[in-house]
């Protein structure tokens, strides 16, 4: 009893204290707003200028006209500082090759992984379909799906985002791009081997950590190769203050490396302790890797697109440190009712509720930034992805906090409800933000416009409607399944039978999502192969003169 309460109190107090120490040290005047720090993503004179590389000239003009605000007249005539734009061009060029590599890999794994996901979904209501070969069985296809989308798609896209954003935000060319590419090669070799190993039945057996630890070594080596150049670029930066996205991105990169390393340590973890480690990792890979990456991306792209700094810089920093201190400890809520110490579930439930703070900080900040500017969504597809993702971050986090409560958990635990929740976070939030980020980044990376802009809207609606059907169907089905399982008077098979129609709806939603990915991948290929009308010069494969690039980037 005493040790339980003490450890609970200790961890909780430490979190709170740490939080306040860091906030205090970050901003000695907490209540004084800091618009300068929030404006660091803009060149001098650039505020008020919209920026959406996924749009063509006419679309940009519309967006610019729609974004005009009364106060802008004062700035008229102030073109963005050409020297600062020049820095940005140099930063973009320094990272173009590795970013292209990460995104190409990411899209490849997205298509493969989501096809595997759809297959697994179909298998749940067609159990005798594709059972002849061992690699086709549900348990393996499902795990290949998870590995391909988590490590292949999201991790690659996240790394591309980090490598592209940091030089921009630090106004410093990326140092050591070759090492970053070596890291990317190692990671993707690891992912390919991991998927092969799982298909062949070689698995470490823990959720999210299935890949054999021998293959995990490649992943760790790859992360280390990337961390080096990232930290070196950070230390040699030209800007004074670090924008909030830098905090999120760099911290996330350090976190995932350590998480993966500790989670995969061979021969250390066993029994119940391994289960808590498993969910410490399993939840932190979402909370301390996917979430900070996506939140960091929104904090950059959303203000950049609309040409206005975020409403409150301090609130964004508060969000960062509360996320850092609360999110790490929520993993135990996956084992509520399991054979783990009672204090551990309680700690995780408490911290799950505390997660409402960073989510509220983020939501208030974004709502404040977008206040009166919501109509811009009509003009900018990238903004649409970002806003959709941001809204879903709020929904999935609030849902996650509530799910940790014992009364809700009792029903939702062990059901498809949890699967729906996981996809709300990993797809509706993270994946949609990454789509938007890629639509923004690639024209700058390849110096080529998206050839068929209508496909961007098509992809958005396919993905949004797909995940909508998926989430709503599976949430209802999962909840009913949970209620049926809790009622001892109903036979277990009833909880299976009643989910079938919802599982079928999940396959319908999944098919729409896969279609959207095919559209996305096709569009990406068309762009990389230089289809469509030539609007700007080619940069990556035949570098144009910096002068010409600068014009493009300053638009």
């Amino acid at each position, binding site marked *: 009893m005493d040790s339980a309460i003490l450890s609970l109190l200790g961890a909780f107090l430490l979190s709170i204290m740490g939080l306040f120490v860091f906030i205090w040290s970050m901003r000695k005047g907490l209540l004084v707003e800091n618009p300068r720090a929030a404006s660091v993503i803009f060149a001098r004179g650039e505020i008020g200028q919209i920026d959406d590389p996924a749009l063509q000239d006419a679309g940009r003009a519309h967006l610019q006209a729609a974004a005009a605000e009364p106060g802008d007249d004062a700035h008229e005539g102030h073109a963005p500082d050409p020297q600062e734009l020049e820095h940005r061009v140099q930063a973009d060029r320094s990272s173009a090759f590795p970013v292209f590599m990460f995104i190409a890999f990411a899209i490849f794994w997205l298509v493969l992984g989501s096809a595997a996901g759809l297959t697994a979904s179909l298998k749940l209501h067609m159990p005798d379909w594709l059972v002849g070969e061992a690699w086709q069985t549900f348990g393996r296809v499902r795990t290949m799906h998870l590995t391909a989308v988590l490590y292949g798609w999201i991790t690659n896209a996240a790394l591309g985002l980090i490598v592209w954003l940091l030089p921009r935000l630090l106004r410093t060319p990326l140092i050591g791009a070759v090492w970053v590419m070596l890291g990317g090669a190692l990671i993707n070799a690891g992912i390919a081997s991991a998927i092969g190993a799982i298909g062949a039945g070689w698995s470490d057996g823990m959720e999210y950590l299935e890949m054999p630890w021998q293959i995990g070594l490649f992943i760790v080596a790859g992360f280390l190769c990337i961390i080096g150049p990232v930290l070196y670029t950070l230390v040699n930066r030209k800007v004074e203050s670090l924008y909030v996205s830098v905090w999120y991105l760099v911290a996330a990169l350090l976190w995932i490396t350590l998480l993966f390393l500790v989670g995969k340590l061979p021969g250390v973890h*066993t*029994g119940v302790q391994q289960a808590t480690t498993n969910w*410490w990792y399993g939840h932190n890979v979402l909370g301390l890797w996917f979430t900070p990456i996506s939140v960091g991306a929104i904090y950059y792209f959303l203000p950049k697109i609309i040409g206005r700094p975020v409403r409150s810089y301090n609130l964004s920093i508060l969000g960062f440190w509360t996320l850092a201190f609360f999110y790490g400890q929520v993993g135990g809520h996956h084992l509520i009712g399991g054979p783990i110490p009672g204090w551990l579930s309680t700690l995780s439930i408490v911290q799950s509720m505390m997660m409402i703070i960073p989510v509220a900080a983020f939501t208030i900040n974004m709502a404040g930034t977008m206040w009166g500017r919501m109509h811009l969504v009509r003009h900018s597809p990238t903004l649409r992805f970002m806003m959709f993702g941001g809204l879903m971050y709020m929904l999935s986090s609030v849902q996650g906090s509530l799910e940790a409560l014992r009364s809700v958990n009792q029903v939702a635990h062990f059901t498809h409800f949890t699967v729906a929740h996981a996809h709300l976070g990993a797809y509706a939030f993270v994946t949609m933000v990454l789509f938007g980020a890629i639509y923004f980044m690639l024209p700058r990376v390849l110096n080529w416009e998206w050839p068929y802009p209508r496909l961007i809207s098509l992809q958005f609606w396919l993905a949004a409607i797909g995940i909508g059907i998926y989430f709503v169907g599976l949430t209802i089905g999962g909840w009913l399944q949970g209620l049926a399982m809790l009622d001892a008077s109903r036979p277990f098979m009833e909880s*299976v039978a009643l989910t079938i129609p919802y599982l079928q709806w999940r396959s319908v939603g999944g098919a729409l999502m896969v279609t959207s990915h095919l559209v996305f991948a096709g569009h990406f290929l068309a762009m990389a192969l230089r289809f469509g009308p030539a609007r700007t010069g080619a940069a990556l494969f035949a570098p144009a003169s910096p002068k010409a690039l600068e014009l493009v980037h300053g638009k």
Partner: protein
Amino acid sequence: MENEIKLAAGAMVSLAVATAALVVLPYMEVRDITPPEGLKPYTSAQLRGREVYIANGCVYCHTQQPRDRNLGPDHARGWGRASVPGDYVYDKPHLLGSMRTGPDLFNIGARQPSKDWHLGHLYQPRAYVPGSIMPSYPYLFETKAAAEPGDEVVKLPPGQGPEGKVVVARPEALDLVKYLQALDHTYPVLPPPPRSAAGPAARPAS
């Protein structure tokens, strides 16, 4: 430099707190647990079967963690008493699971001890449980014209096997069934001595 140090230090401190709570403390609490008297270590055939269980992803639909009575009717469904950390001493990796698309298997060996049932059910679950959505596992079996000496012929319900042929279990299937039969945690566990009640006690506060 100031900001970089804060960033790195803060990120590490926050992660260290989480690691202490979810990895290190459980490690220290569970380290000295002794296995309950009724729990036997796995035999090598059972361990091979456990690998088959892992390789085919059984854990994604089946838990191995009956919950306490106040959290659900797990006991009433015949899944057994709430599990305690000692039950998992020999489990490496753990297979607690997170989904109950199918029933909990912590005591499947006690609930369904028949080898014939398990082999036939793996070959075609719907021959035994109508409406089941468990995949069939034909690749764990061979169909032959006639059984050879030493073959384990699967006894299927009438009309289920291939016409005029016999279904023979491969070694993987036999090992897997041995593991499933070994999943029997019906032995009693003594309540932990009062002194260490706070630690390994499995009962969640209610």
